[in-house]
């Protein structure tokens, strides 16, 4: 069949595009491979000795790995932020951006699965959690739900991206009747992956810090701040380094949408803080550990305090920068805002979520957790793996999106592509 032969050629050409590049490309890939190697080495050591090489213990039984996992689920979910206006309101300038958003989602999901894998004590028993082969405790366990929705979302995005690029490669317009339902499906899917991840914590009555009804809404609101922040910076890099045409209008529109979600995120955080602090029950102790520290037997435990306030302050400044049209359309303040909101959410949905949930522990003990060198090295390895996946995907996708590289043209001319206008797909 033609389609199969063409698809095979598409895969071969995609791999070819990924392997060819300028010096800068090779240097970047080599740098990422080096970091992946460091992470791999640290992980091998962890496999040998067990999770004892991390600083997690019975009291704080989840840490840096699961914090990063949670944050990245948010990044993966946030791609719908761009899909909604592009496909529902048929808002032109943002459309080429959505495929990048979907690739970012794929990357984030790969990193999510990586962080789960490195966190489990028996990765050799991974098949126990696979549907049908193993024994998935569904529907009781929210972790079972999460395994299902994350993998479905990964497959969905993977399919849409591959299909759009393949159409472009065949110099055909994609079939709207196929893409639109899938893209529409990806919207509730994106909401569901982050909701299910929030429920994972939310459902634990043993941990009052997580057992709050607005946890899932807070997850979504913060994800729709941090995910697009990554994209805004990526888009600017891409239009400088490639011929990809991205209008200022598209970037400012995303920034405007982000201002609303940031405002909502701050409102939800304030609502949570009010309830805890004003009612002042014994459940406030976790918030207190996060925001002010706790004193026990003359020792002041305040490891998280500077981070917590940094997160709140940077989040607030970013909100103002995105809210005011003048700073939103100024490149310096816009990018500053992106960095600030990204850091804010990274702290809030990473360590700021996991650690106070487990400190003090179920019996009131305060165990001070900081990630070990192994945890940081492994995490760096996973982030580098994500960056590598995203880099090679972009490397192949950009010339195809631009129509520079198709089944009939572009071969051997990758380094000096012809001029091309904005992509149509």
């Amino acid at each position, binding site marked *: 069949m033609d389609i199969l032969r063409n698809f095979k050629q598409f895969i071969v050409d995609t791999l070819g595009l990924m392997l060819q590049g300028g010096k800068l490309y090779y240097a970047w890939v080599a740098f990422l491979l080096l970091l992946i190697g460091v992470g791999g080495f640290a992980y*091998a050591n962890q*496999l*040998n*000795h*067990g*999770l*004892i090489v*991390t600083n*997690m*213990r*019975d*009291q704080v*039984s*989840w840490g840096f790995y699961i914090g990063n996992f949670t944050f990245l689920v948010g990044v993966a979910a946030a791609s719908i932020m761009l899909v909604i206006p592009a496909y529902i309101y048929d808002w032109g300038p943002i459309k080429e951006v959505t495929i990048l958003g979907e690739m970012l989602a794929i990357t984030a999901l790969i990193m999510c699965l990586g962080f*789960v894998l490195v*966190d*489990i*004590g*028996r*990765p*050799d*028993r*991974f098949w*126990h*959690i696979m549907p049908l082969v*193993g*024994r*998935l*405790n569904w529907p*009781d*366990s*929210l*972790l*079972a739900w999460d*395994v299902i929705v994350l993998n479905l979302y990964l497959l969905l995005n993977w399919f849409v991206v591959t299909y759009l690029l393949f159409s472009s490669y065949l110099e055909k317009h994609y079939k709207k009747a196929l893409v639109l339902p899938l893209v529409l499906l990806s919207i509730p899917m994106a909401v569901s992956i982050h909701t299910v991840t929030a429920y*994972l*914590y939310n*459902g*634990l*009555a*043993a*941990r009052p810090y997580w057992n709050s009804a607005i946890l899932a809404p807070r997850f979504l609101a913060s994800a729709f701040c941090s995910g697009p922040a990554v994209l805004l910076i990526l888009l600017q890099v891409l239009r400088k380094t490639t011929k990809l045409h991205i209008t200022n209008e598209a970037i400012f529109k995303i920034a405007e949408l982000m201002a609303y979600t940031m405002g909502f995120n701050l409102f939800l955080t304030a609502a949570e803080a009010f309830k805890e602090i004003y009612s002042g029950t*014994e459940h406030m*102790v976790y918030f207190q550990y996060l925001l002010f520290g706790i004193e026990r*037997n003359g020792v002041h435990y305040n490891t998280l305090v500077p981070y917590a306030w940094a997160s709140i302050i940077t989040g607030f400044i970013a909100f103002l920068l995105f809210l005011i049209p003048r700073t939103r359309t100024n490149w310096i303040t816009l990018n500053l805002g992106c960095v600030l909101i990204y850091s804010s959410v990274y702290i809030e949905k990473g360590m700021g979520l996991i650690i106070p*949930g*487990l400190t*003090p*522990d*179920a*019996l*009131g*003990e305060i165990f001070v957790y900081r990630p070990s060198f192994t945890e940081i090295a492994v995490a760096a390895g996973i982030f580098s793996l994500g960056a590598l996946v995203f880099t090679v995907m972009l490397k192949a996708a950009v010339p195809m999106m631009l129509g520079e590289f198709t089944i009939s043209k572009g071969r051997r001319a990758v380094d000096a592509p012809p001029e091309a206008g904005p992509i149509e797909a």
Partner: protein
Amino acid sequence: MTDQLPMPLQTGCEPSSSCDSRREFLGTAVAAVAMALTGCGKLSKEEFLQHNFRELSKDEVQTIIARLESEYKAKYGKTVKVGTEPAMPGVIFGYALDLSRCIGCRRCVHACVKENNQSRNPEIQWIRVLEMDKEEGVNLQHADQYYDPAEVPREGHFYMPVQCQQCKKPPCVKVCPVGATWREKDGIVVVDYNWCIGCRYCMAACPYGARHFNWGEPGLTPAEVNPDTHYLGNRPRPKGVVEKCTFCVQRTRKGLYPACVEICPTGSRKFGNLLDAKSEIRQVLEHKRVFKLKEDLNTQPNFFYFYGV
């Protein structure tokens, strides 16, 4: 199947080996990948492919027990018996702890470690004794697990040992993604150490800090090994899995008291069959006023606290 050493991992085919069938070869290949993943060469194909304990046939259980016993023999140089006694009909175990008698001597903690083959280095303790202020009452935010005076009890303090509360609605069982932990018919919540993937979701879900993780390879010397074990209880554990108090399932299903009950010098610990109207535990429930720890969470423990005097 075999009562020799665990089957060494095969990475290639030898003429006389069992690689004839494609299925076996695939199994070996998968086990090799798994070995690379765990970074240890000790994982046998049988162990890798072993299914959840509740899904095994009697024959499969026997094979697994034989394999485990030979593994323990090789590792500790002594015969370790791995029992599989099921729950006795008509029995639901209950536990009651007299807060007015407990003096915080921690004898229960150490008897438990000895009986249940916990890792000694680092030491895992299933019972945590909390020292509390008399003026505060039961308040976990004023509890200290690391009290170390020359003599107990200390003036102005009382003691509250906490271990698995064997809940009727155990949140740990609900959250386990693979069904590696469940509540048995006699009310004991157990873990299949060969099925647990080590995700530690149960530890986050437990309101009593009753679940413990083998962060490293359990440090247990041959001299320390208690050879009378149960598959779902005190058999030596591998690294990377969760473990917990089982009311000494290896003892109580044979009509013995749990080790912590037996050792307690003050008689603070009461144990028995909740379905037997004449049992000591029922006497406590009848004549004393009991309470449950973190009652508001509706975990419905079969572990009760009371003030006996």
